[in-house]
């Protein structure tokens, strides 16, 4: 009985937050004269009500898992990084330029190169924030957000400039990938392989964080940097490494969006996965395994948007309201759950 309770305990604030967010959303809709109950049903139906809905949800969950890691891994080291969108943008950009140099190659090495390029670009982007924090004392939350704006601007500048495919007329894009370089769907479903990689990387990171010496050292740095210094741990290096891995994951999400969804880098790719990843990671309390489930939840909210629009004429932004409400509710319940004063 006690074991059940202690297992359920971490989920209590989470469930309460989901309920509160649903309630807020319903009130918000009702106040404007939309059918609130029907809308909530539609969210569930649009997210998980059919195999088509599931495919939509899972395709969105895939990049969310990776961008959430961009919050979760730095958080283990005590840093609050919210610039995953920037890492995703530069990762996509780096990945998109690789195939041009590889015409005629088999797909596998090209994919590996693209992944490496995306990972390194995204990783370096977030590691820059970590370095600014460690060496210069600049707040990493703000610097990562500002770097995200720069990353997005860089993305747009290059996609509309030197990297632009002259054939892309009203939707500026990089040169489309050759058919053979596209990442396809997993067998038996219409969800691309990005889902597999997202889940796999979350599982691996869950293991790294909990079961390896590196993960433990990062946890010490995040839990109390003074104690880490006293133990002689390389605090700066560990912070940098955690942020590099996190940013790399977000960069990889950008690469997958290019190779599996859009076929090229263009503005449609910056759909806010980097920002929604913040919500996913907080909902999962920065636990890589929890991220898998939370990504499916948040992916579902996004997936239900079109159904809401079609059936009851809700604007597209409605799902963002629900996401935002969920985020605020989560933070509120999280603090309620915590004691305010440290024991003496």
């Amino acid at each position, binding site marked *: 009985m006690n074991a059940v309770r202690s297992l359920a305990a971490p989920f209590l604030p989470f469930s309460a937050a989901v309920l509160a967010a649903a309630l807020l959303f319903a009130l918000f809709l009702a106040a404007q004269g939309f059918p609130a109950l029907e809308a909530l049903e539609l969210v569930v139906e649009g997210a998980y009500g059919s195999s088509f809905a599931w495919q939509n949800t899972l395709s969105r969950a895939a990049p969310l898992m990776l961008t959430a890691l961009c919050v979760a891994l730095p958080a283990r080291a005590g840093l609050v990084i919210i610039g995953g969108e920037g890492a995703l943008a530069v990762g996509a950009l780096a990945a998109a330029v690789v195939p041009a140099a590889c015409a005629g190659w088999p797909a596998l090495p090209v994919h590996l190169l693209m992944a490496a390029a995306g990972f390194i670009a995204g990783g370096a982007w977030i590691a820059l924030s970590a370095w600014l924090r460690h060496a210069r004392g600049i707040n990493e939350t703000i610097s990562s957000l500002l770097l995200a704006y720069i990353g997005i601007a860089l993305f747009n500048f290059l996609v509309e400039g030197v990297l632009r495919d002259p054939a892309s007329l009203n939707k500026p894009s990089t040169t489309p990938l050759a058919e053979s370089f596209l990442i396809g769907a997993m067998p038996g479903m219409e969800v691309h392989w990005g889902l597999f990689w997202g889940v796999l990387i979350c599982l691996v990171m869950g293991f790294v964080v909990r079961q390896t*010496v590196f993960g433990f050292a990062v946890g010490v740095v995040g839990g109390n940097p003074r104690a880490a210094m006293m*133990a002689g741990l390389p605090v700066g290096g560990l912070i940098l490494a955690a942020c590099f891995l996190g940013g790399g994951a977000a960069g990889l999400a950008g690469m997958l969006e290019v190779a599996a969804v859009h076929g090229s880098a263009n503005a449609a790719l910056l759909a806010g996965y980097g920002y929604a990843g913040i919500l996913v990671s907080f909902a999962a309390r920065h636990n890589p395994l929890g991220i898998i489930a939370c990504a499916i939840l948040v992916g579902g909210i996004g997936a239900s948007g079109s159904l809401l629009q079609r059936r009851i004429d809700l604007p597209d932004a409605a799902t963002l309201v629900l996401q935002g409400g969920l985020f605020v509710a989560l933070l509120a319940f999280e603090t309620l759950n915590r004691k305010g004063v440290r024991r003496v």
Partner: protein
Amino acid sequence: MDPLTHSLTAADLQHRGAAVEAFRVTKRFGAFTALDAVSMKVEAGSFHCLLGENGAGKSTLVKCLVGYHPPEEGGFMVDGREHDIRSPRDAQRLRIGMVYQHFTLAPGMTVAENLLLARGDLPLRIDWRHEKAALAAFLDSTPFRLDLNALVADLAAGEKQKLEILKQLYLGQRLLILDEPTSVLTPGEADEVLGLLHGMTRDGRLTVLMISHKFREVSAYGDGVTILRRGKLAGSGRVGELSTAEMAEMMVGSSVAVSSGRRRCAADQTQAIGEIRLDVEGLHADNDRGTPSVRGLDLSVRAGEIVGVAGVAGNGQKELVEVLLGQRQASAGQVRVAGEDYQASRAQMRRHGVFSLPEEPLRNACVPAMSVAENMGLRDFDIAPYAGGWLSLGFLRRRALSRRAKALIEAFGVRPDDPATAIENLSGGNVQRAVLARELSGPVKLLVVANPVFGLDFAATEAIHRRLDQARNEGAAILLVSEDLDELLELSDRIVVMSEGVIAYEALAGQADVAAIGRYMAGHGH
């Protein structure tokens, strides 16, 4: 209602200290019973002391009383009426207030601002002239003297403690609870603060309930005393009628010798003192606010000796220790360990057997949210047998960490004895023991220690002193920084006095002139 009018009438005769009784209070944390039907009686206008070993439940009992965590069973009577205290707000309504062991002040603000802040019901616009006048009048009604315009960051520890107490008086408290109030104070400061509070209880204006480990303070200021032992009431009585030995016996449950005085003198220092292990040369370091704190310090410690660093807090000892621990960058100078330039890296610590017992271990040497087992592994989680596996990844062997932690918990008497408890849930003294266990379990060659017995009961103090002595006899070089001169005189082979960031005086312990040490500590050595 304006609390100010309350505090202004604090001087009124009708404002008396509260009488408080705890009645069969029981408090559990999960399966662990921290308090088991404990009763206590505190008379109105008395100075009551709460004694007990580390982990006896003292903090838990007073936290129940201030509504921080309500008890499962039992209750409290205030002035003869039963009251349900479920939250700190309930306690405030009954005018019961608590001063925590660690400061809760806003360092960047002035004394006046901190006092107003405590009130919590400030108007949109603060009429400073009026408030300052009211605050000055309030200050006059108390025996405490503080400059209202002083910045808290510039106050000494004793003054901060006074401000914490003033904050509570300002809220009109009739019962003031102090959790080990003097552990951060020098004996002089402690006497001043306690003396003033004692005076207020003599006027009957205030009741004081103080947790302490120091028999000296209990005998000097206490009226009544309640003694806890492992969560149960072990005894109570009037201070004059109980001897120190009797109180000590109730605390530990068997008769013990309360040792005092100097254990060693120069005579037993005949054993060989070895090579220089720690050598500090021309060290400079800034404090948190960027002002120079250590200013060209030279110091060396040899194998097999304890060098005691005496000094009034705030003369650079903290910064010195932080540099040696790797928590602070030196701005100039050199630190050499066993002849090698020392960067406080993990490899160097391991190579040269450098360990440390910093003050405030929860802040400086632990990861609060991690378990006792994990915290005990901070030094060696990355080497066999706690790590292993292929590649250089290194997998953590949590089972081995936990097994070792169990052995250390057993050997050092840490309570509770479950290695999976988060270390932040341990009582202050038990955190200290857990860190000590970790730092003394390896092959110690150089040990940096700062105020190792703050907040420890006398048995634990004895145990730690014995361990330090033992480590030294086995050939470790020990640098012991302490604000307690008696402790230094008792343990050290050599004593140095640190004043304004440099060593101002040095003597072999056997030949040390206590009066001279005092003079140099006060900065009037020359």
